[in-house]
């Protein structure tokens, strides 16, 4: 039994026999070819064959994984038509009087290296695409057809790396999982594996010579591990988990498109919390009604300087457009000294949780705030955008915020830049805000309760301190009373209220929250359908 670790691309479990794929592109021999024109004719035929193959792959991919992911085969077709690529191959055939296979392989390597050397991750991953189409041409030239997977029994594919065409060509029904030595999370293989719901691991340091087709293996996408020749116990456990996952997935698929309504007709919105533009896919996949918390910090982290208005505008616009009319609540920057943002020049703080952070930075340094507000107001034109301000403790803060927003609105008007005034709400995450929520409700459009921080501040407990676990009660009556109070105060002013903290997803509290009358729960995308199920099975009239 050998256990190896790698990066998981999809969280699932697979158990089955292994099929080891040895890459076929290794042996291209350089040979003298006196008749260059004959080689060019062979090349043209191979390209035509490739176009047809790619069309078939595209059609198969569209059916199995959807148009967006299938688009890569269209790109492959376009690469095959690229003048520079073709000219380079033609030139090599003529000037070096070599065979077409060699010219294609060399040109493919050159172009692939060019992409691999770019400093953009997305472009780096395109190196694999160039390799893929070059390999395809070489196989066509040497008379080998596409790899034939049809006779295979359901297996786990083990390979050095997998090209997008190899991944899609495989019969989905026959693939239990992928394990590769190389690959990146940006690669099409990873994207396709996720869309095909196939457990896959990349970056696994395997010695392919020691693994043989027919060996049993368990691929654990949760732990990021592959176990070759597992013992009885592991096999039994894996089989059981596979069954559980299958049932869960099936159940959840039947809930898509259904309303979040109890048996006695009470409704609630279930939104999702996300932290980057790329997560929007999961929001849509899991059928959330909207985004209840879009953490904007990703725009500020991992860089040396402030994000420009254009950069922010592009990101916000993209999200609201992708959500096509569903609400997107974007929280303004919630950064503090506990995060790595040297360019903010925040200085060291003894108590960052109680420090100069979030809205406080925005109000003391309005230039930073205004840039974000400008981008948000401009992006609001493109969809259903809502703005939320974190860490509020007083009405005066809200008034200052409104004054700044008003200034921004004025500036955009004068410059005749299109914008829209979004709904504006605040996070209730401090005990102060809870206690004056009746006043705050008069000044904003909604509340979203940040239970994580609210609980910490209220119980005076640092969640990271394991010593305090015995004292920490996430369902502490103090917190629950606060939620009820905030909800009542919001409704008294005709405003809606939701929860965006982790407590929202706690299934033990769902009924409580429904009874309290909350209007919205915003949770991790993977929890949306689970909550829907709970709510649809609930009867509050009992």
């Amino acid at each position: 039994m050998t256990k190896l670790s790698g990066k998981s691309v999809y969280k699932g479990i697979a158990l089955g026999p292994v099929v080891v794929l040895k890459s076929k592109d290794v042996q291209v021999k350089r040979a003298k070819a006196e008749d260059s024109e004959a080689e060019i004719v062979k090349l043209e035929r191979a390209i035509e064959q490739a176009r047809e193959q790619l069309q078939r792959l595209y059609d198969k991919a569209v059916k199995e994984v959807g148009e967006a992911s299938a688009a890569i085969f269209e790109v492959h077709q376009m690469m095959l038509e690229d003048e520079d690529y073709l000219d380079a191959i033609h030139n090599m055939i003529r000037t070096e009087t070599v065979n077409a296979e060699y010219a294609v392989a060399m040109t493919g390597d050159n172009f692939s290296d060019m992409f691999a050397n770019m400093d953009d991750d997305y472009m780096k991953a395109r190196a694999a695409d160039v390799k893929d189409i070059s390999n395809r041409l070489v196989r066509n030239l040497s008379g080998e057809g596409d790899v034939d997977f049809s006779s295979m029994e359901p297996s786990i594919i083990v390979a050095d790396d997998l090209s997008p065409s190899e991944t899609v060509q495989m019969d989905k029904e026959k693939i239990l999982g992928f394990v590769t030595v190389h690959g990146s999370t940006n690669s099409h293989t990873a994207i396709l594996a996720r869309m095909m719901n196939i457990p896959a691991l990349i970056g696994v340091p395997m010695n392919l010579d020691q693994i043989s087709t027919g060996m049993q293996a368990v691929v654990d996408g949760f732990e990021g591990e592959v176990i070759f020749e597992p013992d009885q116990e592991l096999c039994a456990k894996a089989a059981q988990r596979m069954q559980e996952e299958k049932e869960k997935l099936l159940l959840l698929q039947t809930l898509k498109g259904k309303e979040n309504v109890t048996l006695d007709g009470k409704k609630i919105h279930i939104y999702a919390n996300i932290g980057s533009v790329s997560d929007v896919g999961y929001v849509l996949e899991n059928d959330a009604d909207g985004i209840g918390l879009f953490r904007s910090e990703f725009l500020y982290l991992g860089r040396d300087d402030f994000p420009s208005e254009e950069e922010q505008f592009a990101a916000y616009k993209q999200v609201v457009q992708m959500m096509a009319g569903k609400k997107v609540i974007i929280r303004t920057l919630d950064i503090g000294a506990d995060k790595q943002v040297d360019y903010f020049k925040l200085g060291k703080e003894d108590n960052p949780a109680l420090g100069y952070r979030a809205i406080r930075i925005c109000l003391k340094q309005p230039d930073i705030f205004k840039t974000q507000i400008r981008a948000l107001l401009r992006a609001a034109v493109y969809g259903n955008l809502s703005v939320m301000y974190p860490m509020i403790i007083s009405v005066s803060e809200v008034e200052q915020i409104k004054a700044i927003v008003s200034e921004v609105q004025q500036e955009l008007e004068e410059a005749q830049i299109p914008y829209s005034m979004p709904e504006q709400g605040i996070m209730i995450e401090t005990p102060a805000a809870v206690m004056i929520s009746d006043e705050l409700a008069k000044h904003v459009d909604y509340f979203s309760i940040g239970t994580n921080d609210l609980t910490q501040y209220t119980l005076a407990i640092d969640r990271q301190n394991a010593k305090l676990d015995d004292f920490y009660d996430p369902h502490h009556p103090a917190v629950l009373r606060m939620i009820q109070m905030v909800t009542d105060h919001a409704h008294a002013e005709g405003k809606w209220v939701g929860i965006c903290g982790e407590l929202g997803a706690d299934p033990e509290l769902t009924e409580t929250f429904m009874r309290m009358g909350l209007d919205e729960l915003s949770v991790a995308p993977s929890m949306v359908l689970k909550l829907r199920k709970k709510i649809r099975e609930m009867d509050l009239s009992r």
Partner: protein
Amino acid sequence: MKSFSYTIKNAVGIHARPAGLLVKEAKKYRSRIVLTINGKSAEAAKLMAVMGLGAKCGQSVEVEIDGEDEDAAMEGIKAFFEQNL
């Protein structure tokens, strides 16, 4: 000869799919269309070259169009940028 500048708004920059569609659009015209970003140039009809520019969000691209149908090309390419990038 016609030219215009455009600031890329798409958060992912010019990646494979829009690059491919741009090439398709550029091939409709007989004019020569050249994109320049940060001093690097590429003909819009050449996919690998366009992708090789590594154009990112926020970057400004200079588009130069020269040829008998440069007016139509300018309109077409400008519209393309606005709709896709």
